[in-house]
């Protein structure tokens, strides 16, 4: 062969690689020969052009032939695969269900991960949006809120931002419809929606003039509120409603988009909010009520914006030293809006994705095992086909086609399952992130499912193909099932079983730990009795209840009327109640007679304002001193109750705080002494998973509130009294709407809903894994028994008793399970720290959980092995010996 010929052959062979291997095997050498002949001829003609044209024509021919050949083989393989699947209907159905469940779990979780964590925010330039937090001193955590003058400074002096917009949330009363309605109101800069890139569906956006002082008040409706309260009527634009004692015109309806930080009903420009536009708010640097969002200029990094804004903050402190604490080192933290929106959901989503991935691995191992078992029966068929000239690569392709078909059908089933579960899942993630509404099965999810199905087909298809890498002759000679390769395959099968058990163990541990945390959470004594308590939240219309006298008169008459509602045993009013999400007001205080060490942090406690019946309604014990009573009125000496945690912290060593006096900062003039008159039990105010915090309770009569909650203890179902309570409210003030009405028990259930759902999902995945793995073990043992029928027959013929046979089979299965459990334990020790943040009252290596899970797995394995073991014991030695 000449050098040219060699080079030509090499290049031609590369082209040939495009063709199916089988085709290459049949015609490759011949085609080479033909091509060389053609090339020689072209060379003889002596023109370079001719050679180039030959190459071009040849390449074109192969490029058109190759896809056709591949397709025709695929068609052939698929037809054959479908026939094989129909023939083994039991295997096919089992495999499709197992793969469907595995792929379905992954598709469902991925569709959530995709919507929440992967997709860019559905805002224009979402990647440039920031949320700003102000850090007033080096030690203090960054606070969310800033004051109006500070915002104006940041806006004017920054160099890195396109825009800074403000936000705060209020509850106002909307009048002018059939019933007065309490609406969640977002108060924002005029360009707020412009920065977020949301254009109104109908009507117009806010304009700069809307924000000017004294501009006519305008409203934008949120999409959900518009649908809910106006039935999606576009003519609502232009309508006028009364709010805060002045007319408000609806100028537009917002599109559906994730609202952050709150789901509001309506939005108004800052000038329309009576609080925000008051001189006190505009002029005072310390009145921090605004949240700030910002859009960076293109190509600015969040850290650069942070540094830029921190410079502004330092300048502010220099200019207004009286407005900042002495040790101040003000700075600004800028968080990407995306991470702000999703950071709560991220760990849970990733945990669930990992769990779903594990389920899929088990499903794959299981189907691979089923495939292997089937191979034993198909051994002869495949052997014969090999003998008839089918190349190994051809058989491999055939097997892969079969597993791909299975995976694709399983994937379709999984897609259906995922689609069915999506509504439930998005309700679940809504507890973590406002992006839940974006959860859909979209192109990315479909591609993911396809990729998973491909991965599955390779994983389940290659195992049997690898196991076939053995001598063809042995197969034919030994007639199938009991050859030495049976041993190799047996080892592969055992490994797959062990892997399934180990991964199931991991999942069961994860589920066990979260379930135990959930039980712990449910067992937490909240410090109050949530059963049979009705809560009604509302904010009094501040434009009418302008004095303490009016507010108190309202409450007196409402509480009296509600007391007379049948079924209500006691009723109270309070500023906050336990497990409500809104944060309580934190306040500094000083203790009479104590020297302040400036280095120590000042005493701080949260405040709640309550009527005397509050303790009764909630069942909070009075530990010492006395409760508030009718003697505590607006003009009597100021009094307070404290909780046990406050008492222990500031009056340690059993010192009695009752009778001591404190000075509450920022309350009234901040100079009136308040006497502690009693100590009450601790309450888990902010959730069952967080320890009780320090609380000071003040009497409602001395500090009347506009935005409180009414609470009533009832006999029987508290919701049954809801209607009557609201009617009493309208009797007292027909223009005062009730806000949220819910039982306290419901708040308690909601507060653990997220961990409960996490535990449920992990539990579901773990049970799925356990079922698949157990079925896998059972199947393999059954196969082993049928393969060993002869041997068992011999054993019985020479005197083995059935019980011994049962023990032999069981111990074989249990041996596999045991190895799996040991690997699982090791893996769990390595991995469970990942779930630490999800646990409550249980360590990641909780021995009880480990033992329990090991017991469950052992029991499941025993149960799975029992049937095949019993069948083994029933082997008739005579029949068994004749089978050979």
């Amino acid at each position, binding site marked *: 062969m000449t050098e040219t010929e060699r080079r030509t052959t090499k290049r031609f062979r590369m082209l040939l690689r495009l063709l199916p291997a089988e085709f290459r095997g049949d015609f490759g050498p011949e085609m080479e*020969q*033909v091509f060389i002949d053609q090339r020689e001829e072209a060379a003889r003609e002596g023109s370079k052009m001719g050679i180039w044209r030959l190459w071009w024509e040849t390449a074109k021919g192969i*490029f058109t032939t190759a896809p056709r050949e591949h397709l025709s083989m695929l068609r052939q393989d698929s037809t054959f695969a479908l026939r094989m699947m129909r023939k083994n209907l039991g295997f096919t159905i089992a495999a499709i269900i197992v793969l469907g469940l595995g792929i379905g779990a992954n598709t469902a979780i991925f569709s959530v991960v995709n919507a929440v964590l992967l997709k860019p925010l559905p805002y224009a330039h979402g990647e440039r949006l920031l949320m700003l937090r102000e850090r007033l001193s080096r030690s203090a955590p960054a606070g969310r809120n800033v004051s109006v003058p500070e915002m104006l400074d940041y806006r004017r002096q920054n160099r890195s931002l396109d825009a800074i917009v403000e936000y705060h949330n209020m509850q106002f009363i909307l009048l002018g419809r059939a019933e007065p309605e309490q609406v969640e109101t977002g108060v924002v800069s005029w360009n707020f929606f412009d920065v977020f890139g949301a254009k109104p569906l109908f009507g117009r956006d806010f304009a700069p003039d809307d924000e000017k002082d004294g501009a006519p008040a305008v409203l934008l409706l949120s999409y959900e509120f518009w649908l809910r309260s106006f039935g999606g009527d576009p003519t609502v634009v232009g309508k006028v409603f009364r709010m805060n004692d002045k007319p408000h015109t609806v100028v537009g309806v917002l599109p559906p988009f994730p609202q952050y930080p709150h789901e509001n009903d309506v939005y108004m420009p800052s000038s329309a909010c009576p609080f925000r536009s008051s001189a006190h708010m505009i002029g005072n640097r310390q009145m921090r009520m605004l949240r700030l969002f910002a859009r960076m200029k293109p190509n600015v990094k969040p850290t650069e914006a942070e540094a830029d804004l921190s410079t502004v903050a330092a300048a502010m402190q220099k200019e207004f030293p009286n407005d900042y604490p002495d040790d101040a080192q003000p700075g600004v933290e800028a968080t990407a809006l995306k991470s702000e929106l999703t950071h709560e959901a991220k760990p849970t989503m990733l945990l669930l994705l990992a769990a779903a991935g594990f389920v899929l691995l088990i499903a794959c191992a299981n189907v691979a095992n089923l495939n292997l078992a089937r191979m034993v029966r198909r051994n002869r068929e495949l052997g014969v086909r090999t003998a008839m000239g089918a190349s190994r690569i051809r058989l491999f392709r055939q097997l892969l086609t079969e597993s791909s078909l299975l995976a694709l059908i399983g994937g379709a089933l999984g897609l259906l399952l995922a689609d069915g579960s999506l509504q439930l899942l998005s309700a679940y993630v809504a507890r973590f992130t406002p992006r839940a509404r974006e959860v859909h099965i979209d192109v990315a999810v479909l591609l993911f499912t396809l990729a998973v199905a491909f991965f599955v087909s390779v994983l389940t298809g290659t195992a049997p193909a690898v196991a076939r890498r053995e001598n063809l002759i042995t197969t034919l000679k030994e007639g199938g099932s009991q050859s030495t390769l049976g041993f190799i395959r047996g080892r592969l099968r055992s490994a797959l079983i062990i892997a399934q058990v180990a991964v199931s163990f991991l999942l069961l541990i994860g589920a066990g730990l979260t379930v135990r945390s959930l039980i712990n959470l449910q067992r937490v004594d909240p410090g109050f009795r949530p059963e049979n308590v009705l809560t009604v939240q509302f904010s009094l219309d501040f434009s009418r209840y302008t004095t303490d006298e009016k507010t108190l008169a309202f409450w007196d008459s409402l509480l009296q009327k509600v007391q007379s509602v049948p079924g209500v045993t006691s009723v109270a009013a309070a500023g906050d109640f336990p497990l409500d999400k809104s944060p309580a007001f934190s306040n500094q205080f000083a203790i009479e007679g104590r020297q302040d060490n400036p280095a120590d942090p000042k005493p701080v406690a949260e405040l709640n304002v309550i009527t005397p019946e509050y303790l009764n309604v909630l069942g909070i014990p009075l530990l010492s001193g006395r409760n508030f009573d009718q003697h505590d009125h607006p003009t009597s000496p100021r009094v307070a109750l404290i909780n046990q945690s406050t008492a222990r912290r500031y009056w340690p060593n059993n010192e009695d705080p009752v009778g001591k006096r404190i000075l509450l900062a920022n309350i009234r003039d901040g100079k009136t002494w308040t006497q502690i008159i009693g100590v009450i039990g601790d309450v888990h105010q902010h959730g069952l998973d967080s320890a009780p915090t320090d609380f000071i309770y003040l009497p409602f009569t001395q500090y009347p509130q506009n935005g409180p909650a009414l609470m009533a203890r009832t006999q029987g179902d508290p919701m049954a009294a809801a209607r009557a309570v609201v009617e009493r409210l309208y009797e007292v003030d027909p223009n005062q709407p009730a806000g949220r009405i819910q039982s306290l028990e419901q708040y308690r259930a909601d507060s653990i809903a997220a961990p409960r759902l996490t535990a449920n999902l992990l539990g579901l995945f773990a049970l799925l894994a356990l079922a698949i793995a157990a079925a896998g073990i059972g199947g393999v043992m059954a196969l082993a028994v049928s393969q060993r029928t002869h041997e068992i027959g011999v054993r019985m013929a020479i005197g083995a008793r059935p019980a011994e046979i049962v023990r032999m089979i069981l111990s074989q299965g249990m041996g596999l399970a045991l190895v799996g459990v040991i690997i699982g334990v090791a893996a769990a020790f390595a991995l469970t720290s990942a779930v630490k943040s999800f646990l409550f009252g249980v360590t990641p290596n909780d021995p009880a959980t480990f033992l329990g899970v090991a017991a469950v797995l052992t029991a499941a394995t025993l149960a799975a092995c029992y049937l095949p073991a019993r069948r083994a014991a029933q082997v008739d030695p005579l029949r068994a010996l004749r089978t050979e």
Partner: protein
Amino acid sequence: MFHVLLALAGDDLHGYAILKEVELRTAGEVKLSTGTLYGIIKRLLNDGLIIERRERPSAHDDERRRYYRLTPKGREVAAAEAERLEKVVALARSRHLLKRTQPA
């Protein structure tokens, strides 16, 4: 496909010879590339229209070369196709689409 059958209607040929034969008979109008040719050969083999000849014309022939022969069935198919074409041509002629001076 038809051209390959026609080429084999005379002699048993190997791949390169088929290519040359087709090219020659069509005066260079039909040029098959190797890929196309063997796609066709595979289909003809599968359909039983041609077979591979066992014996080789001479011992020193390149062993990579395989010779193909038209089967009786292949001959029938080729003939049927030729007849069909003849009818089509006759029809075209009766519609005066073809000049008489150029026989099919």
